[in-house]
């Protein structure tokens, strides 16, 4: 990844995914944030992408495991061998 001293829309957009996943260095995060603070267009795009990611996470995690899942599985494991290391 190229060194980032300051940024424009194109540079910011190239780092969109890494920014949203906090994969940038603190300095890079700050520089992108500074750009977002002054660029309404990029802010809209970044906010929308963040909203998609968070929304998908929220939705797919709506799931209940069967209440007896753990006990059922543990009951089917072979018993511990005495002296097993």
């Amino acid at each position, binding site marked *: 990844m190229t060194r980032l001293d300051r940024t424009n829309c194109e540079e910011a957009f190239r780092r969109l995914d*890494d920014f949203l996943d906090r994969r940038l260095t603190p300095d890079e995060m700050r520089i992108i944030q500074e750009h977002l603070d002054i660029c309404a267009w990029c802010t809209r795009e970044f906010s929308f992408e963040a909203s*998609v990611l968070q929304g998908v996470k929220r*939705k797919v995690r709506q799931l209940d495991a069967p209440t007896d899942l*753990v006990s059922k599985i543990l009951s089917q494991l072979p018993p511990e061998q005495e002296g097993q290391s």
Partner: protein
Amino acid sequence: MTPLSHVQKTGSLSSDFVRTPPVTFESLFTSVAHAAYGIAMRLTRNQADAEDLVQDAALLAHRGFDSFMSGTNFRAWFFKILINCYYSRRRREKSRPVTSDLDDTPDLYLYARSGQAGFPTQGPDPASLLLEKLGTERIVGAINRLPEEYRVVSTLYFMEDLSYEEIAGVLECPVGTVRSRLHRGRKMLQKALWQIAEEDGIVSQPADQEDA
């Protein structure tokens, strides 16, 4: 509270000094079982298959528990076994047709399409209206349209707060591969979501718009 309960796992006091802090397979498995089931459920889309998958992984993990290094990341270790079990099952099944038209998805696909269709593109949570209308099952269905390597990495990413490094460990691939698959998978997912929204009449299909 039984201070020596961990000795039950090994049955020997010598292991007591090796494996610290004291843990049992049962306690570690219990801590990850529901998360594992969630991933299994999203990958198999079937409760019975998901339970079987977690069961298979638990059996293998239990058998190989001595190779797990206490104090390291049990969750990532168990997920790796789970994913390997999943791939083993997949190999026994017929290969799925791959939806290749997702390959050329442009950036900001959902943003652009949402704007054209009159859905919000700004505000505190701009995509929420579309995602609410789609609902969980269709969103899961969209992830399932992704080619396998993107589907698995995306499922891990969306279901669990795993770092790229942890996902790379689970999938036994370089971090750069995780990063590129996630980034590309996201673009594909946006197109898949829109395709499903069109197919199910949540948004108008282009032909409908022309007729209108």
